[in-house]
């Protein structure tokens, strides 16, 4: 196998990865899962397992919405989607980095306790990434109507 054929093989694999999107019908499914999980999260107060399932179902719902195609998936939509992913990535990383500092300062100012620095948590980072992407994408689409 020469270098050219290896590169061609790699390119084909990358092209396959680009077709990660689900069809438009899945968008509704995603919103329904998100809606049910969101309501379930507020209704469950004690059962921690159920709460955990609801929290992760919210993420699954948003992920399905995020990777579902629009009715007409043209180049403008792809462009807006790319912008929303970029914005979500930068915003989520910024929040993840600055949050421990802000929570430390808030604790110090309001409770005068010197709590140790604590991270933002995996669920919160994923929630930030997905929710910002999905809602910013909807906002961008609205701006281009």
């Amino acid at each position: 196998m020469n270098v050219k054929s290896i590169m061609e093989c790699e390119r084909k694999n990358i092209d396959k990865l680009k077709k990660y999107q689900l069809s438009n019908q899945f968008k509704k499914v995603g919103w329904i899962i998100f809606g049910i999980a969101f309501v379930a999260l507020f209704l469950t107060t004690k059962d921690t397992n159920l709460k955990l399932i609801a929290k992760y179902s919210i993420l699954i719902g948003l992920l399905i919405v995020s990777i579902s195609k629009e009715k007409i998936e043209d180049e403008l939509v792809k462009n807006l989607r790319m912008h929303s992913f970029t914005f979500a990535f930068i915003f989520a990383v910024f929040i993840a980095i600055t949050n421990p500092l802000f929570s430390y300062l808030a604790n110090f100012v309001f409770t005068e306790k010197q709590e140790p620095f604590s991270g933002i948590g995996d669920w919160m980072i994923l929630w930030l990434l997905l929710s910002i992407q999905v809602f910013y994408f909807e906002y961008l689409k609205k701006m281009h109507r």
Partner: protein
Amino acid sequence: MKNRLKIERAILNLTQEELANKIGVSRQTISSIEKNRYVPSTVLSLRLSNLFKKPVNDFFELDENEKANA
């Protein structure tokens, strides 16, 4: 980038929706191009060129600051 898409569309007596269907995009894309909110790809520009039967330069024009390095 300035464009004459609205004028060319009027010459062919097409609505945004009809033009969008002819070149396989959404109405929002046509509207965004006309309002200069979105710069179309080369493929889309050439599809428009085929439809209008005119070169791309006839309905898309660079701004002065975009011409600077030419």
